């Protein structure tokens, strides 16, 4: 019983991702031109970004908490969440690039959404660099917490606001039907939504492992 409370959510994450992997390849999908079978990438590329949003939002909240209470534990959570969030973003960009190659014909497009995603990641790479440049724990926590807020605002601007202002090739922007009522049917929704939860749970498991590792390291020193 205790096992379920402690680890049940991890098992659920694993189960949901396994479900995604199986149904992702075997499940029925709409037959659409240009996309063909790549529409299944919805369960992988798009879910990476959803998971990234969730994890980076937690990172922001932890940074805000730190600035409120100055508990270094919160800074550890902020840093770990940002780290995993960056990983998810990088995977999102790589998978998106591969998808673009096979549907648009090129690995990258001079497109607001794509460039916005790249810029957002650069902001978070800078967060990592900033952290590694400060040795004093409290100072590092404070400065990076403030920067984290700034980076998150930039994320909202470059990933959500700016792409909506300009014509874009990316699905979901500027009137592209983009994976809603035209392209995403109920068969796919049945796999897509649990997939988001599964990937978020897995990502969170990685965050907890990162925090526990850092804690163990500082306890050993």
């Amino acid at each position, binding site marked *: 019983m205790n096992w379920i409370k402690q680890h049940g959510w991890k098992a659920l994450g694993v189960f949901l991702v396994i479900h995604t992997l199986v149904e992702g390849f075997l499940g029925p999908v709409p037959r659409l031109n240009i996309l063909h*079978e790549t529409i299944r990438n919805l369960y992988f590329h798009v879910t990476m970004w959803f998971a990234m949003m969730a994890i980076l939002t937690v990172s922001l909240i932890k940074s805000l908490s730190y600035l409120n209470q100055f508990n270094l534990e919160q800074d550890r959570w902020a840093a770990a969440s940002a780290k995993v969030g960056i990983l998810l973003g990088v995977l999102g960009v790589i998978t998106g690039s591969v998808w673009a190659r096979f549907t648009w014909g090129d690995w990258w497009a001079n497109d607001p959404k794509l460039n916005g995603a790249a810029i957002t990641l650069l902001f978070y790479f800078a967060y990592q660099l900033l952290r590694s440049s400060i040795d004093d724990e409290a100072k590092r926590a404070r400065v990076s917490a403030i920067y984290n807020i700034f980076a998150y605002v930039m994320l909202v601007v470059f990933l959500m606001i700016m792409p909506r202002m300009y014509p874009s090739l990316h699905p979901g922007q500027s009137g592209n039907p983009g994976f809603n009522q035209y392209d995403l049917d109920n068969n796919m929704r049945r796999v897509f939504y649990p997939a988001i939860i599964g990937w978020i749970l897995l990502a969170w498991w990685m965050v907890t492992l990162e925090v526990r*590792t850092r804690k163990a390291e500082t306890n050993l020193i």
Partner: protein
Amino acid sequence: MASLSAFSIALGQTPAAEIEMADALHQNGKIYVVVAVVLIIFAGLVWYMIGIDRRLRRIENK
């Protein structure tokens, strides 16, 4: 069947049968090989993560 195609063409839509999908892989069962490979790799990664989790717990409980 012909009237259905004519209807679809009139609407400017490509008939479903003409859009290439991996039907062959589904029909000859090779899609299951893809799924099996992906699951095996995923199982390996999960095994690794469980291992880290266990090791950390041992360190924390000392």
